[in-house]
């Protein structure tokens, strides 16, 4: 058999599903559905996403309406979670805060995944000097504690939603790059890559069309968990006053009300609800992400 025919056969195998007709993805989905915690997490996330999208429909007050006559009111029938220091309805702001927290988490993760996947794959595949440089940059980034740099940069450039997403994206890509690189290194020497080379594909095509799709599993898992990390980070930075600025509500800046000691002690409805929201959102993401990791792990046989 000529080399070309051999390689074409190998390519056919590349695209083939296994003999019983179930693709690895379908197996993973099946496994995932059995995981109750993961499904519960997914359900909560679904509810939150809907709440974020349909916020105006489930809240009755204006988000930013200041009413100085009604400040610091405890929860009541009119205001389910009371009012804040400017008389605004806490429940409404909490629901709108979902939008900010979720979108910051998603966008910053998207940024870090894109940068991380490209640099990790390129470094892992090309090796040599390129890899060495990229890895050194990763090492440098990993020496800076996240909040420290985020605080410093936010402090210098002033807080804004865009800067926040950018900082978080830029500080998180090294982690993903490392994972992608490790995966690429293992895959590099597998047969189907050699088959692609035999077919005459250039490096770029090999990286994008063949290697990256096979690294999807850990990328998806880490992206999911990265969103959780993003939400936590946004909360932290906004709490310090260096994230989302008023009047836009985010769970983080709602929590910053409790920097005031009397609020912490007497007006629990201002800070405990947003804190619990962060906890439940991140928890759900973690349940789901963990279930995802187990489902996509080929070593775990049910």
């Amino acid at each position, binding site marked *: 058999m000529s080399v070309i025919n051999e390689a074409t056969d190998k390519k056919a195998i590349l695209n083939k599903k296994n003999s019983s007709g179930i693709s690895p993805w379908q197996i993973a989905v099946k496994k995932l559905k059995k995981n109750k915690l993961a499904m519960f997490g997914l359900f909560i996330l679904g509810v939150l996403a809907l709440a974020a999208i349909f916020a105006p429909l489930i809240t009755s007050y204006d988000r930013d309406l200041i009413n100085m006559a009604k400040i610091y009111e405890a929860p009541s029938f009119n205001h389910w979670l009371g009012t804040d220091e400017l008389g605004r309805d806490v429940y409404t702001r909490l629901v709108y805060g979902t939008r900010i927290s979720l979108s910051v988490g998603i966008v910053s993760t998207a940024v870090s995944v894109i940068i991380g996947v490209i640099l990790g794959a390129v470094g892992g595949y090309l090796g040599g000097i390129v890899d060495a440089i990229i890895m*050194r*940059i990763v*090492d*440098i980034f*990993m*020496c*800076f*504690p*996240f*909040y*420290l*740099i985020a*605080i*410093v940069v936010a*402090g*210098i450039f002033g807080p804004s939603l865009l800067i926040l997403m950018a900082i978080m994206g830029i500080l998180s890509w090294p982690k993903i790059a490392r994972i992608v690189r490790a995966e690429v290194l293992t895959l590099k020497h597998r047969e189907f890559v050699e088959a692609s080379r035999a077919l005459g594909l250039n490096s770029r095509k090999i990286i994008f069309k063949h290697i990256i799709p096979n690294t999807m599993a850990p990328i998806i898992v880490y992206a999911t968990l990265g969103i*959780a990390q993003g939400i*936590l980070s946004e*909360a*932290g930075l906004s*709490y*310090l006053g*260096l994230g989302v600025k008023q009047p836009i509500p985010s769970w983080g800046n709602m*929590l910053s009300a*409790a*920097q005031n*000691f009397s609020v*912490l*002690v007497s007006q*629990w409805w201002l*800070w*405990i609800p947003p*804190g619990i929201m*962060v*906890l*439940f959102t*991140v*928890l759900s993401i*973690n*349940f789901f992400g*963990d279930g995802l990791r187990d489902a996509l792990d080929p070593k775990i046989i049910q």
Partner: protein
Amino acid sequence: MRKYITKRLLLMIPVLLGISIVIFSLINIAPGDPFSSMIDPNITASDKQNMLESIGYYDTLPVKYVKWLGRAAHGDLGYSIRYKEPVTDVIMRNIGNTMLLSLSALLLSVLIAVPIGVISATHKYSLFDYVITVFSFIGLSIPVFFLGMLMIKFLAFDMNLFPISGMVTVGADYSGIQKFFDLIQHMILPVTALGMINMASLMRYTRSSMLEVITQDYIRTARAKGLKERRVIYKHALKNALIPVVTVICMSMGYLLSGALLTETVFSWPGMGTLIYQAILNRDYPLVTSSTMVLAMFILFSNLLADILYAFLDPRIKFN
């Protein structure tokens, strides 16, 4: 192994340089004139001109960098705008407190998380394992400052079990053993809050490392030798499982320092975190950038320590 360590040390050099370049860029991007803050504010105007020249104010950027690097290597990190004293002095005052907090949190989390992780793995799917898993999920998902706030509100304020904030009781003049106990009392809440998250992730990591080792062939061999199960788990499995765990512990210094910033703010703990936060609000950039550099160095060395320990513990690297 010597080759491995030498290689690691050599690789550290570009990283060190990289860190210094990042810091230097931050210094120059920050608003304000970074050079006035590099010289003692108490000197005369003519001396000031000479000083400015010697520190490179009139030089080109690369020369500026080299001169700054030289001074930094000698411990001269400039002067704090707010405190009007050398940055090095200010940092020295506060870094100890942050280290106390972080290292205690590290110790606490290791002492609790590792044994629990091991037991969780050997009793997979038991009630204990299930409870621990839920607990560690919660621990991973809660923002450290929210946890701190909850602790202050309920444990310190409502139940009056612990002091609300700070490192020492203000006004009281304790000494000796009383001072020590006062310190411990103040430490309990922040150390627990900071350590909680590290504990949760370490628990899960130990568990999964242990689980992976238990399925290895050499564990089956150990059993086939007629060794008692306790010996198989706590000698054969554990030693293998702990090697990556040790490196993770070293590398968690980065997370702990990061979390310490937030924890300190919540508990008004006088450490680097509060220092940096205040410095940013006060636009005291020399303090900010130098503190950043000091912490980054510390993390760099913890990562290096992690690699070296790994080489020591794993015979596959030690003897090759």
